[in-house]
């Protein structure tokens, strides 16, 4: 589904990502892990079109991801969350989620301006759908509450709701476990698995938290120094000597 092939990103003379290739298959939860500075975030930024790679191709369901602009990525069916939460603070939880449907509507500014009836209808449909997503993520109670000031764990779920509102076929999660307690991480793991079933999508997870990655993913890719050093089932990867090396420090 998502195919990354030979992607290389250079910053000056430094190769942040070096000839990286992997695939995320339909419906799978894929974890991308690696020590600090391994190039995960760079790769993430390449997939979300914030960075342009120096070489390589990325296709999503056959569409060339590298030919679209940042705001068009979500239209292809890839939706993301942010490492340090990036909700719209002045909007209610419901409005945040409706904003998530932006890419699915063609209602134009001019249509809004003149109250074009089909446009109003479309707005209403998407509002109802957003509400339904909140219901499914148990966020109904806070639907009309301003996002600003809600507890961190709740906001993480709101962000997921916003990402889901785009009806993506793939969800990109940037360190979703960051800032959560142990118990919350376990809950999050369950939630991600549940979402994958409920909304039938695949998930690419960039994460530090080994426990979370090992417990929910079907497929793990390990990066170190910009290169891929392992790619396989969680159990295989866990026992891979290169991975142990990268995480525990190179002794030799």
């Amino acid at each position, binding site marked *: 589904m998502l195919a990354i092939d030979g992607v290389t990103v250079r910053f000056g003379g430094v190769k942040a990502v070096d000839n990286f290739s992997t695939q995320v298959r339909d419906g799978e939860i894929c974890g991308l892990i690696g020590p600090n500075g391994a190039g995960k975030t760079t790769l993430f*930024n390449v997939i979300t079109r*914030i960075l342009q790679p120096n070489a390589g191709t990325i296709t999503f369901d056959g569409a060339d991801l590298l030919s679209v602009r940042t705001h068009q990525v979500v239209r292809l069916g890839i939706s993301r969350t942010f*490492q340090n939460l990036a909700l719209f603070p002045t909007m209610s939880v419901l409005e945040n989620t409706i904003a998530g449907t932006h890419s699915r509507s063609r209602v134009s500014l001019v249509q809004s301006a003149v109250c074009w009836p089909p446009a109003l209808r479309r707005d209403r449909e998407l509002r109802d759908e957003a509400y339904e997503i909140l219901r499914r993520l148990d966020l109904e109670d806070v639907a009309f509450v301003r996002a600003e000031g809600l507890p961190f764990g709740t906001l993480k779920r709101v962000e997921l709701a916003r990402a889901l509102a785009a009806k993506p076929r793939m969800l990109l999660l940037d360190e979703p476990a960051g800032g959560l307690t142990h118990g919350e991480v376990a809950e999050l793991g369950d939630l991600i698995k549940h979402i994958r079933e409920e909304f039938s999508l695949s998930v690419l997870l960039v994460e530090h938290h080994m426990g979370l990655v090992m417990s929910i993913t079907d497929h793990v890719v390990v990066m170190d120094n910009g290169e891929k050093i392992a790619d396989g089932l969680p159990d295989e990867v866990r026992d891979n000597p290169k991975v142990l090396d990268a995480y525990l420090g190179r002794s030799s």
Partner: protein
Amino acid sequence: MQLFLEYLFAGISNGAIYAALALALVMVFRGTGTINFAQGEMALFTTYIAWGLTTKNVPVVLCLLIATAAGFVLGAVTERVLIRPIERKSLLATLIVLLGLFLALNSLDGILWGNQNYTMPSLFPNAVSSFITVGGARLYWANLGLWIVVAVLVGAMFQLFNHTRLGLHMRATASNRESASLSGIPVGRILMLGWGFSAAIGAIAGVLLTPLSPDSLGVGEMFPILIQASAAALFGGLDSPGGAVIAGLLMGVVEALLSGYVPAIGGQLQEAIAFVAIVLVLLVRPQGLFGSKEVERV
């Protein structure tokens, strides 16, 4: 040649003032990430103070020092009282507060000192005959003095930035406030100092500029200069003190030569030219000539 030199001298004088104010703007920008719209009005306010003192027969040098000190206090207090509590909210709120300060200070000047213009006594010999001749062109002592003071001022600022502990702290605060704070730098005090220095520079610029021509101390004096200085700061790169100084000088000289040789665009179109310059720079090279590219943080 003589005409050229005279235009050039006038240009350098204006340019020196632009450079000083642009440097002041850059100092605030590096600390707080905003353009201080009230920079010119702060300078004007302190210049009025200096003028008020000269009418009481205080020596001009002393007036300059007092105005500089007053500027420093004004800047530091503004940062502490008006800016710091609001800047966390949003850039928009900060800009609106500064706009309010601009308007309030300007009107206060008018209320305190009236709408007439005054002549500011010069720090340097300022008679019609106090000039030296360079290549046939007259170079007045007031101009030369201004160049020297601004040069010393800029030099001192750079010395401060690059070779003192305080400067190091300022640079650290500018590049990343959080890490600066974590490494024990008193970020709040550094920001206050930055604003203080910046307003002090403005005060000096005002006291030096106004004597260059008679009757030029008035409520509308500083604003056009602020516009030019902003254009210069933008042109040099908002986060680059060196760029601001060079661009300020350049701007003064180009402007003087243009209005000298091409009368059609000179004089009353100056601000329009600055506007065009600003837009062009922003479109072609948003980070300015010497500035660093903004890195997108996700």
